[in-house]
């Protein structure tokens, strides 16, 4: 008889060594406003530091645009619209957009590092998702520029004029691409305001647009805070507003624009239901739940923040989920092995903490893995809540952080009812091994985007947008052209 089985070798304690991405993001010390093809100082001379939320260090100073600057930008955009861009053929417009796409692709790594340093998201995501998708949007809409008559057969698609675009801090460059690409393809000019915490990739995009030789004034980028955004919304010579951000601001914009001729699209909050049926491929569903809620630290309007799991597999799913959450690597966003980066800002961290505290107070049961967090910067552990009821704030309010609320259901009907019991309707997910169930359930969930057996998949060809308080209008795909044209 062999003694082979008696010998035991102690397992290796294996910790991945740091693997930081080392490309230089090429930040300037100071960024002015990008108006009429040039970088110009702000009228009131104010600059604010833009920081790295993972280290709380200043990366660059960025100009703060005020009402006079907005006016200047709108005038430049109007001039460029009237004199050049609206007269240019679609084919020529397309060439410029393709050039932006190619330049972005060539400098993808530099932009990824910049995005990660300024926003806190992991380099894995900025490298594999944000920047490639941003380039893909420019490529996609460049292709439409000379084919608008085929997009709207029998009708003439006329451009609108000057578009005011206000974007959020969760996907800074990608949101800029979502806004700028379709506007340019349809012959409009743009005044874009990046979010006040994450202006740096937008300013780098301004440099790239200069390099691409885009005619002056076609794209103007003016960073600033809420007053800047308000000045854009209220400017009388803007024809269309495109906003992505919070539902509260979206409602304010709607009130402001009531009775004006300005068109608008709003892409607002969400509280998506991710429904796991007991016949789902459980291990892959668990991975899907992780992607749904912890992608980009949960700073995702379409995050799957409400998990609805069928009771027969609830214990299994929750146990597996905890096991998987314990393997998530939290820390330096520039490390290629980091899964969860820093929270975007101190303010956002405060909002997450307050909502999580309310969850515990209202009687839900909280669980977090026992990972260490860096001493500096803004961090929040991936968190799940069980014992959640439909009336808890953590089940109703958008947390916009790595926090998952878990509810169970028994029947299909109950799942649908719970999924729809929200003020939002942006996205949703259904996990089942049965094809027929996918179609039956997804047709009943009132949300703009529903994924089956996957989550958080984005593609420039696919329209994106919400029902109810999640917004109005669609971005992406053929649908994304419509808000930027007047059909005759």
């Amino acid at each position, binding site marked *: 008889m062999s003694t*082979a089985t008696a010998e035991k*070798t102690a397992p*290796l304690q*294996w910790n*991945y060594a740091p693997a930081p991405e080392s490309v230089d993001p090429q930040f300037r010390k100071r960024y002015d406003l990008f108006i009429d093809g040039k970088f110009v100082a702000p009228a009131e001379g104010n600059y604010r530091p833009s920081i790295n939320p993972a280290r709380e260090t200043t990366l660059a100073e960025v100009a703060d645009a005020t009402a006079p600057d907005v006016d200047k930008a709108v005038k430049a955009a109007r001039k460029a619209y009237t004199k050049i861009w609206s007269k240019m053929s679609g084919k020529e417009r397309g060439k410029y957009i393709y050039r932006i796409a190619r330049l972005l692709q060539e400098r993808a790594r530099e932009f990824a590092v910049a995005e990660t340093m300024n926003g806190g998201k992991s380099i894995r995501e900025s490298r594999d998702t944000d920047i490639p998708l941003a380039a893909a949007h420019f490529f996609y809409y460049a292709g439409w520029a000379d084919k608008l008559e085929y997009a709207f057969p029998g009708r003439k698609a006329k451009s609108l004029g000057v578009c005011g675009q206000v974007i959020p801090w969760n996907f800074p460059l990608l949101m800029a691409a979502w806004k700028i690409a379709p506007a340019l393809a349809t012959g409009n000019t743009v005044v874009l305001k990046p979010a006040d915490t994450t202006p740096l990739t937008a300013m780098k995009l301004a440099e790239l647009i200069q390099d691409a030789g885009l005619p002056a004034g076609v794209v103007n980028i003016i960073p600033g805070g809420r007053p800047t955004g308000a000045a854009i919304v209220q400017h009388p010579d803007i024809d269309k507003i495109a906003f992505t951000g919070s539902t509260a601001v979206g409602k304010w914009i709607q009130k402001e624009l009531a009775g004006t001729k300005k068109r608008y699209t709003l892409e607002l909050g969400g509280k998506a239901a991710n429904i796991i049926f007991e016949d789902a491929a459980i291990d*892959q569903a668990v991975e899907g739940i992780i992607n749904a809620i912890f992608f980009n630290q949960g700073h995702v309007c379409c995050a799957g923040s409400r998990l609805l799991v069928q009771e027969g597999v609830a214990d299994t799913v929750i146990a597996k989920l905890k096991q998987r959450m314990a393997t998530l690597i939290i820390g330096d966003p520039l490390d290629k092995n980091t899964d969860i980066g820093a929270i975007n800002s101190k303010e956002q961290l405060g909002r997450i903490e307050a909502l999580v505290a309310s969850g515990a107070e209202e009687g839900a049961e909280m669980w977090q893995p026992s990972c260490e967090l860096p001493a500096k910067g803004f961090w929040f552990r991936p968190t799940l809540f069980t014992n959640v009821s439909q009336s808890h704030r953590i089940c109703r309010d958008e947390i916009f952080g790595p926090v998952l609320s878990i509810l169970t259901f028994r029947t299909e009907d109950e799942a649908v009812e719970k999924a729809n019991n929200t003020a939002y309707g942006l996205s949703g997910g259904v996990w089942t091994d049965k094809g027929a169930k996918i179609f039956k359930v997804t047709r009943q969930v009132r949300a703009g985007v529903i994924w089956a057996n996957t989550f958080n998949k984005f593609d420039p060809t696919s329209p994106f947008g919400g029902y109810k308080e999640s917004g109005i209008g669609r971005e992406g795909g053929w649908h994304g052209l419509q808000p930027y044209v007047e059909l005759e």
Partner: protein
Amino acid sequence: MVYGTKGYRFNSCRARQISVVTGELIMQASQQPYPNWQPSPAVDQVGVEERIARLNTRSIKKESKVQALKLALSMIDQTTLEGSDSAGKVKQMCYKALHVHDALPGLPHVAAVCVYPTMVRVAKAELKSSGIHVAAVATAFPSGQADHDTKIQDLRYAISEGADEVDMVISRGAYLRGEYNYVYDEIAEFKSICGDVHLKVILETGELGTLDRVRHASDLALAAGGDFIKTSTGKVQPAATQPVTLVMLEAVRDFHQRTGQKRGMKPAGGIKTAKQAIQYLVIVNETLGPDWLTPDLFRFGASTLTNDILMQLVKESTGVYQSSDYFSQAG
């Protein structure tokens, strides 16, 4: 649904209560084996491939890379399974297993050598008490196309020659026909014959066709008493792949969750580079956790992997790559 020896699919913790001496079920009067009605979970291939792609983005550098390379080396089942195998070739392979690269001190030896039963005696004589195991393939390897008695004879012969481990093949024909109880009983019987000899159950995933079947066959082999589940014989393409490995590791994880027992897993065939080996270790680490980072619970079946790992280890130590001429071949 899988059925066991008495027509039930046993709850896994009971399935292990087969006496290794007699091969009979140990049952107290009051204890009836009761069926486990939980079906094997569905597996979504697209999701598995996405998970693998994400795991492959792990960047393993510096000291963690050296650790991984040494660990991978210690997990290798150095294999030769050719009709042309000779005593001389097996002796050379055993020497290589003991002295993987004397120019670089401090390296572990491989876990085992894997040979046909007729070569077990030769290998045992070479390896003696080195701690390197001798594994024999048996039960009509690689096709499994023999009658039951012949397989048993093959198995008994390998054990009598002194094999520490046996790599068996399941009857794929029976499995694909849906005769799951036959396959289960066969594995359980082989395990009872093996006793303390480690039994690795080769599923030959390249012939199973779907990841659903890979998962189901893994559950079956674990419940029937296999100490390890192994992907492939190396004689069928595709051999080991990362998606298949992930699914089998998930089966091992769930089995541990249910029963508290730690079983092993061995991908075999097609793992040729150090980079691949590190990717596999990442999959193990993030699926089963660090407890499985030991040759007791994870192995690589490979014939040419050793030298690629050595090349990387020399590079980490000296900063330059050496030509393959500087690394002795295994056989």
